[in-house]
């Protein structure tokens, strides 16, 4: 067994594996509105995140996504309550004062009776969306976005660099803004009004522009853009292939998730798209004369993590097509059941908690000893 295959040897898992796993779980979440299954999914992602996250700044993003999910559920419930009609059920919870609307808005009702069915439906719909969000949040927390950009194929290198630079600039802008707002105080100004926006905005923009020019100069002197010579036609073909492929992939994923098309056609579009974009990337790879420093390996743990996501997604999708009971509730007011197959599928998603290698403990750097203080 190679060292990279050992799931107990500490190292960072390939970010792509985390994303594939998370997407698998998100697909599983998209197939059900059963609150028991959704909460189980939340528990699974939460457990894996707490077991394998690092202490990097982005590792806290799971909690942020969870909060965002709660807000989402709240907004949905409030909107549904305001707009609820009796069409979904007849169990009236309470009655809000109804706002009279003009004639042209007939069919829309604001306020009035709020039914239990409407509220519960909103809660379940919101929960589904929140769960999918949390899957993305888990990937965000577990995989460094920069490492993911680093593993982009060579043809997408420029896009990756642009993203990395943007990722550095955003926090820098926040720091700048803070510093400049503080400086306003030093001139006895208070932070209000349009004038304040202008006087903080301008220096921030100027600073950002200066920094971009500096960075561009630095990148130029460090060999950025030393590409091999490629004829124009080939460059255009590469671009067209990648775009076409991405379109196919997007179409395939969309139709698979929304049942808008025959599933076979959707799978076909997805596979075709993948194939075309792969061809494009391969063609584009040739013009890049770059090498890669310590690329993340793709070994057994990566396969296991990806597989656990794929199994979770696959089993729930199969269960949905087979019409397993409990994935979709017959009505909002019924007690949700616990279907065996989807539960097993979701529990498979727990695998990364043991299959992904743990992270190396942070090394405590010895203190710098330098200035001899009298």
């Amino acid at each position, binding site marked *: 067994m190679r060292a990279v295959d050992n799931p107990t040897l500490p190292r960072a898992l390939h970010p792509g594996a985390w994303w594939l796993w998370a997407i698998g779980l998100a697909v599983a979440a998209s197939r059900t509105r059963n609150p028991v299954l959704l909460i189980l999914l939340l528990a699974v992602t939460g457990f894996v995140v707490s077991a394998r996250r690092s202490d*990097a700044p982005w590792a806290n993003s799971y909690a942020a996504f969870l909060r965002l999910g709660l807000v989402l559920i709240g907004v949905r419930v409030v909107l549904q309550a305001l707009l609820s009609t009796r069409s979904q059920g007849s169990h009236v919870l309470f009655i809000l004062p109804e706002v009279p609307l003009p004639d042209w808005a007939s069919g829309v009702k604001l306020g009035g009776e709020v039914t239990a069915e409407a509220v519960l439906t909103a809660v379940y719909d919101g929960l589904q969306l929140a769960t999918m969000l949390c899957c993305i949040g888990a990937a965000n927390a577990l995989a460094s976005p920069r490492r993911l950009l680093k593993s982009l194929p060579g043809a997408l290198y420029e896009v990756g660099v642009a993203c990395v630079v943007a990722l550095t600039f955003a926090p820098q802008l926040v720091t700048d803004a803070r510093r400049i707002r503080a400086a306003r105080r030093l001139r006895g100004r208070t932070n209000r009004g349009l004038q304040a926006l202008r006087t903080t905005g301008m220096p921030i923009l100027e600073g950002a522009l200066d920094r971009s020019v*500096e960075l561009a100069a630095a990148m130029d002197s*460090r*060999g950025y853009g030393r590409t091999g010579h490629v004829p124009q036609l080939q460059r255009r073909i590469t671009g067209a292939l990648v775009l076409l492929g991405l379109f196919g992939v997007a179409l395939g994923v969309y139709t698979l998730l929304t049942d808008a098309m025959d599933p076979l056609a959707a799978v076909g579009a997805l596979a075709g798209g993948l194939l075309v974009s792969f061809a494009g990337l391969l063609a584009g790879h040739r013009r890049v004369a770059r090498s890669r420093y310590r690329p993340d390996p793709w070994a057994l743990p990566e396969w296991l993590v990806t597989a656990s996501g794929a199994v979770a997604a696959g089993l729930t999708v199969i269960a949905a097509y087979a019409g397993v009971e409990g994935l979709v509730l017959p009505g909002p007011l019924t007690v949700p059941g616990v279907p065996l197959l989807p539960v097993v599928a979701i529990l498979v998603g727990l695998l990364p908690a043991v299959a992904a290698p743990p992270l190396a403990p942070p090394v405590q750097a010895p203190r710098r000893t330098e200035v001899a*203080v009298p």
Partner: protein
Amino acid sequence: MIEFDRVSVTYDGAPGPALREATFTVPEGELALVIGRTGSGKSTLLRAINGLVPHFTGGTLSGRVTVSGRDTREYRPRDLADVVGIVGQDPMAGFVTDTVEDELAYTMESLGIAPDVMRRRVEETLDLLGLADVRDRPLTALSGGQRQRTAIGAALTPHPAVLVLDEPTSALDPGAAEEVLAALQRLVHDLGVTVVMAEHRLERVVQYADRVIEVPGGSGPVQSGEPVRLMATAPVAPPVVQLGRLAGWSPLPLSVRDARRAAGALRTRLDGAVPLRAGMSTGTSTGTSLARCRDLVVRYDRTVALRGVTLEVTAGEVVALMGRNGAGKSTLLNALVGLVTPVSGAVDASGLTPVRTRPKDLVKAVGLVPQEPADLLYAATVRDECAQADADFRVADGTCRALLARLAPGIDDDTHPRDLSEGQRLCLALAVVLCGAPPLLLLDEPTRGLDYGAKQRLVEILRELTAAGHAVLLSTHDVELVAEVATRVVVLADGEVVADGETTAVVAGSPAFAPQVAKILAPLPFLTVGEVAAALGEAS
């Protein structure tokens, strides 16, 4: 290795050339130091070496620059990346990736160097520059010295023949500067890298230089030659050279060690003389207390920036805050203007509690010039800036402009504040802050990027202010400035006051904080060339 043949550079729209008639050669394995006043064209010269001027900046370059046989007319900066490594003034601005290791590998990746070679070189560079402990750290979490060394390492990994550095130690505390210079020494001595660097802090670097390239700016030609020969007449000179000129030593010493060996006679002559600290009240000042901190504790999340600092500054004093980067100097200044809220303890600035005072009242009591003076400036011209300052501080029209004319004469009213030199910008920010006539003036690292002339002007301004009854508290790494102007020195370490006393007592005995003159003349209590000159004048 590097050849400049009658090189002149004129930027588009500029009235005159930024660099005029530069002709010199830097042979392989030399450390060349580029000196000159701010704005004299040092950066232009450095950037011409790898073709950033004119390929990236635009403008017209006449003459010929060749590096390792390659003409920069035919090679773009990216095509010279394997020959020239360049480190800019602010290393943070040139970082492309986010961790130390990735940053070190970046240039090699661009050049397409084989993965196993890259791995080996990164490991070697980590050891060479002492960065192994921080290899996984995000670049934002590094100290100033570590950042600078990372930037140098990143330029070094593709094994360039030439390393170009713009002000590598200006922003660093004395300890971190030592680290960086030691690393550069190793490169020149052990690896035969040709190093070209510009630096304002000549006292730190001139002793290591094999060659000095003087960029006079204006109409004079660029000169190049032996450090000893050029330093004898250079308009910018470190204290050791000034002392050597004063005492008439020949050959002119460039390092403290050489000067000490030559200084025997001078020491005997000065024995028993008491230095007159120029422009300073001697003895304990009895002015009113303008700033007072008692048991001040400030923390940011998990890090404690100040733990129990007690400090008092009275009218007529210039107190220098020293200590390594991150010791809590800026935090202390910010606490005095209410930008940070203390966890416990009391702060009192000219009788007000800063966090509880409205900004427009506070600016009349205490003024702070931040590390980036540009943060204080918003307007598009100097005239507007001054007018706005008058309005902000509710003082008579023209107050700010009059102050500026006194601090830095000859600034054009229509200049954009960004186009001013560092020294002029500092003076503008100072004029803005002084509009409110705050009795207490705080300066955060005022000498960053200032040349000796601008620094001298700052010293005069600070002396005038204290004579008028202001109190000044300034944080700085510049030991020579401290020796010139400070009456008292407070040393912070890890958020605690570790030394607080008269300048001579605190700095003279310290290896890191002692100014050059003190090191040369120890155990005599002289700190500056001016004091020595005054004492010699009395003696004769």
